[in-house]
């Protein structure tokens, strides 16, 4: 158990990324650094276009950095010279969801371990049903297709699909962005429960400071493009997190410390967005 807990430390060291599609270089990340401990729940808050997804793509192995490096438990994951290669150590849950609609819930969830051949079909199915059950009684939906589930259930199944691979790091790219308040608050509950059950390192990307403070151990605020870490804030609210914490003085105090900075970056990003359109 301890062994598992001590896996999944991420060091992001002066990470930089320049997109250069047609000579018009876009500096998406510059000198972006963070030390993330194993098992830590980290939220990254930043305005649109600041490079959050770029950072996540580098960690996931979808794209190459142009400077700096990212290490997972001391092993280089991403650097200008490392061939990007996604894998089950760090699994992404996508903003719009990426359950395969042509597979049933169960087929989706066992996809990872069976493709990697770490489990046989039967063992994978047993493990999947067990995990689905623990994560809020989802096992009863095993034979349904994703299209037959609510978007909240789809997102939870996708998180289970990721956890089936025993990843060291779970990467969540604004998974609740398109949801209404009520579903979102239900999803927060579920995600916190799942994280208590399976304490992996989590990198949670969001625009929403409230959400970040409520979920995370540590909140990083990113600057507008080129993205780097502007502030780091340790959220010393106890776990399990409860709704009344949202109206506690500790919470308000934490919010006071960062809200102005977040707002400033949001405004900058917004104004730049409009300038660039003009």
């Amino acid at each position, binding site marked *: 158990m301890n062994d598992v807990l001590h896996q999944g430390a991420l060091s992001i060291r002066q990470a930089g990324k320049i997109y250069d599609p047609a000579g018009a270089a876009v500096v998406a990340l510059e000198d972006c650094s963070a030390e993330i401990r194993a098992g830590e729940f980290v939220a990254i808050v930043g*305005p*649109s276009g600041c490079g959050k997804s770029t950072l996540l793509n580098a960690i996931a192995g979808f794209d190459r950095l142009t400077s700096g490096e990212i290490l997972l438990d001391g092993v280089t994951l991403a650097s200008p010279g490392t061939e990007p290669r996604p894998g089950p150590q760090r699994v992404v849950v996508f903003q719009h969801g990426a359950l395969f609609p042509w597979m049933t819930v169960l087929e989706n969830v066992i996809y990872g371990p069976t493709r990697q051949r770490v489990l046989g079909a039967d063992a994978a199915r047993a493990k999947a049903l067990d995990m689905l059950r623990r994560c809020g009684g989802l096992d009863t939906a095993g034979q349904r297709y994703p299209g037959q589930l609510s978007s909240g259930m789809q997102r939870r199944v996708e998180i289970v699909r990721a956890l089936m691979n025993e990843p060291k790091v779970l990467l969540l790219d604004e998974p609740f*962005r*398109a949801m*209404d*308040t*009520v579903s979102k*608050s*239900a999803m927060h*509950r579920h995600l916190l429960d799942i994280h208590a059950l399976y304490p992996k390192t989590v990198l949670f990307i*969001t*625009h*929403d*400071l*409230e*959400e970040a403070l409520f979920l995370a151990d540590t909140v990083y605020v990113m600057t507008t493009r080129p993205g780097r870490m502007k502030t780091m804030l340790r959220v010393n609210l106890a776990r399990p997190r409860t*709704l009344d914490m*949202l*109206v506690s*003085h500790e919470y*308000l105090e934490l*919010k*006071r410390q960062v*809200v*102005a900075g*977040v*707002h400033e970056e*949001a*405004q900058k*990003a*917004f104004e730049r*967005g*409009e300038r660039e*359109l*003009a």
Partner: protein
Amino acid sequence: MMMQTSATTGLASNATAAQQAVPVSPLAPRRRQGHLVVQGVSKRFAQRDSAPAEVLRDCSFEVEPGRLTVLMGPSGCGKSTLAYLLAGYLAPDAGSLTIDGMPITQAGPDRMLVFQETALWPWMSIVENVMFGPLARGDMSRAQARQAAEALLQKFGLVGFGDRYPSQLSGGMKRRAELAQALINSPKVMILDEPFRGLDVMTRELMQEYYVQLFEETQLTTLFITTELEEAIFLADRIVFMGTAPGRIVRGLEVDLPHPRTIGSMTSERYLEIKKDAMATLIEYGAVSTD
């Protein structure tokens, strides 16, 4: 944000003077008007193969003139139906709706409804979109409408975008163009139905600031519909909470945070008390998940 230029004020009020007893420019501070009263309103919708669905039951509340009232409730509780009733697109089965004492029987430019979905016509440029209302009614000449539209676009930080098409604008800019499109009609009351839904949280917060500033300058009577508690508290002078199945009014809550509202308003002690109070209501009526 800057105040409107005096030239616009003059122009717009000239144009509307012929039409209305009280001359109002889109951006001029309002006299206290646009008092909406909803009294005992119920509404059912007939369904194809089952009993009629009861959407609203005995709803009563007021939108006081010169104040910003937020209507808050879980999705599907009938907020939009209330907005349609107030706009005059639907008639209630029981109860009454009035504006400044007059019964609401049909849609009119004194009540402007802005939806969550974009209402800009994609085949018209932004300025044409904004000019549409007064031109369609024949309230203004083309030149007058154009000038009024451009003044509004300036107000909303859209200078230089008038000749663009909606698809060429960002989400936040489109929402502001929609506000201009509604405001050019000099409504007595604005009814905004989740206007910022779908924007990311940060852009949304900036849009809220835009609207609250506009409101503080014009005192334009507003009914703002939302599902987000943060948004409700930031904007509201008063929050009206709805419960669901069937939709009904469960509570009114005064939000006495001082104007002008800024991000600082959201970290004050008073804010915390109001949020606590509001949250308790939401939990009580099942609008937040607690399991």
